């Protein structure tokens, strides 16, 4: 019963999405429904376009010259690539955490308050900063030095600050692009714990190269792979090879390539 309900609850769905940089096609014909309240991980070998797909979900690809998208990306029943859509508004609903921790050159407090303020937050700012830091599991470590620069924190703490900053604007979805790849295992573990907490309130979609991480944190897994172009000039195009619940992908994958990737035969 609950499972059925979950399946109806799709928050973002990709319908025949192809993304290209100029004339070079990166991913082709992606169909995928991301479920509300779940952590979905995107895995796959380098160059298969999983980061590109992730960035297309909140129109971050708009910033790359020549990047174009075909097909539709539905978010809450609206095509976010419609001409009438304001990408700034999309990014307010769908926040993003990047590979490299990138706090602003401001104080810890301001790092969080900045986003909330420009989004028109009118409530108690101190409370919001505290709540966001608590949710990102950073409050205890920095409650006494909110005035210090965001750069004074360690790499793992900076990344959690970036997560807190994203939470503060109260998006519906949080996209994470390899959030732990620049971090040590202990910081990684803390971020994963944070993600489990966040799942209660947010939908999370994460790109990761670490299969153990995908297994640990995610409910659903999408495996992307790349194949050479049919005309055979050596270029590769990415596609969604398999998508399902994480336990299914890792324990009984349907595709042979998925099986091979997961067992470490390539990638």
């Amino acid at each position, binding site marked *: 019963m609950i499972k059925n309900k979950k399946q109806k609850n799709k928050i973002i769905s990709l319908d025949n999405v192809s993304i290209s940089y100029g004339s070079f096609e990166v991913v082709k014909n992606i169909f995928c429904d991301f479920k509300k309240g779940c952590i979905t991980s995107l895995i796959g070998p380098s160059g298969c376009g999983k980061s590109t797909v992730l960035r297309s979900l*909140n129109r971050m690809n708009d910033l790359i010259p020549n990047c174009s998208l075909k097909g539709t990306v539905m978010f809450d029943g609206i095509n976010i690539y419609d001409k009438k859509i304001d990408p700034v508004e999309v990014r307010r609903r769908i926040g*993003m955490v*990047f590979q490299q921790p990138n706090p*602003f*050159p401001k104080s810890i407090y301001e790092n969080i308050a900045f*986003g909330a303020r*420009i989004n028109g937050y009118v409530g108690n700012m101190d409370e919001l900063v505290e709540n966001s830091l608590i949710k990102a599991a950073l409050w205890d470590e920095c409650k006494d030095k909110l*005035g210090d620069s965001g750069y004074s924190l360690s790499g793992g703490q900076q990344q959690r600050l*970036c997560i807190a900053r994203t939470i503060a604007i109260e998006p519906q979805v949080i996209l994470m692009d390899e959030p732990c790849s620049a971090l040590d295992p202990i910081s990684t573990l803390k971020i994963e714990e944070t993600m489990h907490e966040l799942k209660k309130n947010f939908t999370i979609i994460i790109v990761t190269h670490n299969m153990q991480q995908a297994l640990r944190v995610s409910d659903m897994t999408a495996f992307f792979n790349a194949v050479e172009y049919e005309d055979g000039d050596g270029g590769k195009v990415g596609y969604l090879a398999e998508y399902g619940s994480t336990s299914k992908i890792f324990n009984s994958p349907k595709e042979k390539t998925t099986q091979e990737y997961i067992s470490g035969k390539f990638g």
Partner: protein
Amino acid sequence: MQNHNLFYQNKSSRNITDIFLTSISFLFALFAILPLILVVSYILFKGGSQISLDLFTLEPNPPGDEFSAGGINPALVGTLIITSIASLIAIPIGMGGGIYLAEYSKGGLFARFIRFGVNVLAGVPSIIAGVFIYALIVSTKIIFGSTYSGLAGGIALSILMLPSVIKTTDEGLKLVPNELRQASLGIGASMYTTILRITLPAAFRSIATGVVLGIARAAGETAPLIFTALFSYYYVSGFEDLFYEMGSLSVLIYNFALEPYDVQNKLAWAASFILVLSILFVNIFARILANITTKEKRI
């Protein structure tokens, strides 16, 4: 025997060449700095002795007065006014252009054309800027019928400042890591908020330094002012003086250094002293500015 080879060999040709080339490059470095030291110290020596209170408060006497040349007050004030006009024109336009190039243009054909144009403009001799403004403003009397004026001088200098302001803004913004931009856009900030609140403050240091140096460079220009602001012996007394000939330190030096009278020559030295000193101070100020802002950034 083999161990011996580890010791430093004074007489090996490799080490001798090494010492020789090191000394030569040191010598050339010394030659390179020599003109600067000589020019500055000569001006300090010749001009420094002329400094008095009268220098700053009096008008220059017309040539022919053999006992006193007066002061340089009109030229000092004129240089300040003309440079301010140039800054008021060049900084907003230049920063706007630089922001467009670095943040909005995405490296298209138009942007490449502008960058090329800016580089060409930076290489245009300053006298051309003077002649251009002379033809455009002075000879046509387009500004309320005035011919030579402080305003025209300021406009001519702004042409010289413009490329350096555009370039420093463009380069300064390009140095801001893209991650910062993405971070800001990723939490739903608009392009405008991102530039105003994140990228410009992050690039403030390099932009401010570049702009201040551009001002210092413009302040010392002579050629464009001869065609536009000309020169004046009289105090700047009101707003309307903007539309008449205006003195400046550099033109005063040019005029008075060529006079046959000794007192006038001395005044030119004094003006050189003031000009060099103020440019030196502006440079030091730019460095201090850079230091202050870096400290602030780390909070």
